[in-house]
């Protein structure tokens, strides 16, 4: 079916894994990259896609932290709607957390998620298994079985592995199975009833605080245990300056620690809480300006390995509530790329190439999955960026079932032009001039995800299976 040859012609190719940044063609056959280089010659029957002017061809983005809510909370998100949101946001692969109902702590749940992902036929979906049974923090989950069933990492998602000896054994056992442990760093004794960053804003608003030290302390323990065992640990959604100090010092002495940061922690501070907007409530919480500055510096200096969304869909009823009773979490799949292009690249904090690495090669390496590079033999997972596209975020147009974003109404510069998975176009942004060259296997145009230009049912344009 995909045996024909396709060539992406004339775009700027940015591929940090191979150090390439320049105009080149990308030749694709059987869902894989055959060759990348300027002025490639191809056989006449090859399908030619002229990359629209100004667009950038990148290895497909990998979001290593999303909550897809299936099984158990399909009214918030399903694997299919999450995958549709992912490709509309430029992610060709998404790793999904095990905080489902039941938890993904055994092969049956992993299998269900993978089956749903295959049915959807959009983004690649990499399940993350639980560290402990039921994510209850008491006994190890069937980590080896989870690996065999297709999990790429283990995490208790949303909860720290509080017990230090359990964490130590989880690190050792998961490493034996070839997986990292992804930990949510929070010393929960310090955050009881907390709903916001402990600082001046929460104090004046009368909101119970969660001090940055709660994250730093737990991260310090994890880095020490990773050093002790030699097993890789990955710290999810790092938010505090002190945590970066811990990671930096661990990396300096060779500890296999990696970490991620979310677009919202890179761009928003606790000042956003002034109107008690529950779409600014997440865990870890939005922190102070000094933390945001430190996170941006951490991206530039390599302390932070990747940008991940922590996409956490919530039903409107969970958010239309008193601030302290509202659910934690924000969605991010459909805004991450635009937020990062505008606030990080165009703002001059990181180069485009660095951002692409943070979104592709690095997460793929940490998870040990294919992709993240545009080199011969790599899967043809490709994200095409329109770095100067004016985008206005409109939550009503999301393909995600959820609308809980703190970026609604933001005007941003930069977006996604098209997304290909395994050489097949799965998303085209109709508002990018010339992007229709990518076509869609189904022949249906995609409605603009992050930009609201397209009217009608926001999900009507979701690409169908091929």
């Amino acid at each position, binding site marked *: 079916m995909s045996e024909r040859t396709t060539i992406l012609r004339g775009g700027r190719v940015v591929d940090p894994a191979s150090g390439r940044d320049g105009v080149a063609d990308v030749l694709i056959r059987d869902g894989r990259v055959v060759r990348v280089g300027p002025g490639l010659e191809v056989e006449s029957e090859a399908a030619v896609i002229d990359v629209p002017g100004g667009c950038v061809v990148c290895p497909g983005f990998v979001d290593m932290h999303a909550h897809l809510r299936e099984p158990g909370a399909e009214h918030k998100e399903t694997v299919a709607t999450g995958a549709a949101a992912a490709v509309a946001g430029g992610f060709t692969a998404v790793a999904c957390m095990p905080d489902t109902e039941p938890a993904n702590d055994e092969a049956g749940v992993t299998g269900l998620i993978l089956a749903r992902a295959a049915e959807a036929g959009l983004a690649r979906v990499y399940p993350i298994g639980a560290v402990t049974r039921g994510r209850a923090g008491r006994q190890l989950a069937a980590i080896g079985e989870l690996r065999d069933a297709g999990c790429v990492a283990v995490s208790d998602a949303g909860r720290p592995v509080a017990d230090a000896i359990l964490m130590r054994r989880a690190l050792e056992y998961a490493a034996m199975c070839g997986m990292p442990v992804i930990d949510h760093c929070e010393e929960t004794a310090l955050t*009881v009833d907390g709903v916001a960053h402990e600082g001046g804003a929460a*104090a004046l608003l*009368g909101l119970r605080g969660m001090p940055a030290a709660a994250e730093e302390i737990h991260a310090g323990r994890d880095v020490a245990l990773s050093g002790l065992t030699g097993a890789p640990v990955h710290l999810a959604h790092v938010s505090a300056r002190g945590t970066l100090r811990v990671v930096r010092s661990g990396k300096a002495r060779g500890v296999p620690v990696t970490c991620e940061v979310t677009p919202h922690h890179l761009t928003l501070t606790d000042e956003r809480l002034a*109107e*008690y907007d529950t779409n600014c409530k997440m865990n870890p919480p939005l922190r102070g300006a000094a933390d945001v500055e430190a996170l941006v510096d951490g991206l530039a200096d390599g302390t932070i390995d990747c940008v991940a969304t922590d996409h956490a869909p919530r039903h*409107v009823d969970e958010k239309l509530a*008193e*601030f302290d009773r509202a659910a934690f979490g924000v969605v991010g799949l459909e805004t991450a790329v635009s937020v990062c292009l505008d606030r990080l690249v165009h703002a001059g904090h990181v180069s485009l190439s660095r951002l692409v690495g943070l979104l592709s090669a690095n997460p793929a390496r940490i998870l040990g999955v294919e992709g993240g590079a545009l080199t011969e033999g790599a899967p043809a997972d490709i994200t095409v960026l329109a770095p100067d596209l004016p985008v206005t975020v409109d939550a009503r147009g999301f393909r995600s079932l959820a609308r809980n974003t703190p970026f*609604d109404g933001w005007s941003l510069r930069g977006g996604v032009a098209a997304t290909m998975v395994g050489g097949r176009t799965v998303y085209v942004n109709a508002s990018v001039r010339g992007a229709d060259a990518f076509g869609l296997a189904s022949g249906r145009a995609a409605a603009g995800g992050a930009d609201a230009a397209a009217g009608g049912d926001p999900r009507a344009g979701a690409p169908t299976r091929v």
Partner: protein
Amino acid sequence: MAPTAEPSRRAPDSPLGLDAPVRLRTKDLLSIGDLSPDEILLILDTAEAMKEVGTRSIKKVPALRGHTVVNLFFEPSTRTRTSFEIAEKRLSADTVNVAASGSSVSKGETLADTLRNLEAMSPDMIVLRHASAGAGHLAARLCGACIINAGDGMHEHPTQALVDAFTIRERKGGLAGLRVSIIGDLLHSRVFRSNLRLLRVLGAQVCACGPATLMLPDMERLGVRATTSVDDAVAGADVIMLLRVQLERMRGHFFPSRREYFQRFGMTMARLRRAAPDAVVMHPGPMNRGVEIASEVADGSRSVILEQVANGVAVRMAVLYLLAGSRRGAAPGGPALDGGSGWDRAGE
């Protein structure tokens, strides 16, 4: 045109006949931050006229006739609820009291649904007390009715701060330059947070004192002198405002015992001698006698605690009256209810 202090210079019965220029810019009173300095003075001046109504044999004026006011209280309250209710009745409003225990809240209804249902009955004002900070902000987004915050969790209790300012002004003539020391459980106090904003706007020098475990971070940045020494806080103070130790909001250990709290922070006659000779002692109530305040102080000649309660009615009459004026002048139509957006409150 900016509001002025005009009403206080009118004849005592003028609240009856005032027809327009007195109004507040805000639709809701959620925080002292919603009020400009001029508006704060307007409320205090109007309260003086309102206080006179309470001295008449027939304590009633028709100012809010035809207005429906719902007192929606999700937390227990004696003083504040009674004070609002008396104020509403003296202004001839139709009042309805809804207490959480007697409502559908006990059947599991969400706050949003409770508010939408009340809103469907077109009240003009909702006086809201709730255990969650920001509950009034949610109400203001969902309701066209004017929302008056009568205490939201640890956030604010703006009418109490207005009562306190009115009482201080009555006793001292003004607030500019006064040394006001607020002593007690700062962390859990919505009265403190409202007073912090209000006293600073009116030019008082504020000193905040309490155990290190019950302090707010960054108080110097808020223009407040912070100390853990009660003697230091009392020395030379013109006003001593004590705050209730809110044991019900405390999880875990903030201080070793009530006894030790009283020894270190309790207001006694001996400590009070260090204050200015004409210093007054205030407490927003309810008091824990023998914890934050000795009975001899609470019932002593320096105490203006019952004056605060008495003034509560007049100040709340002024707030209700002025907000009703602002509502009459406001464009109709409530905020969006879809919950997906529309978080920004109109007019800000």
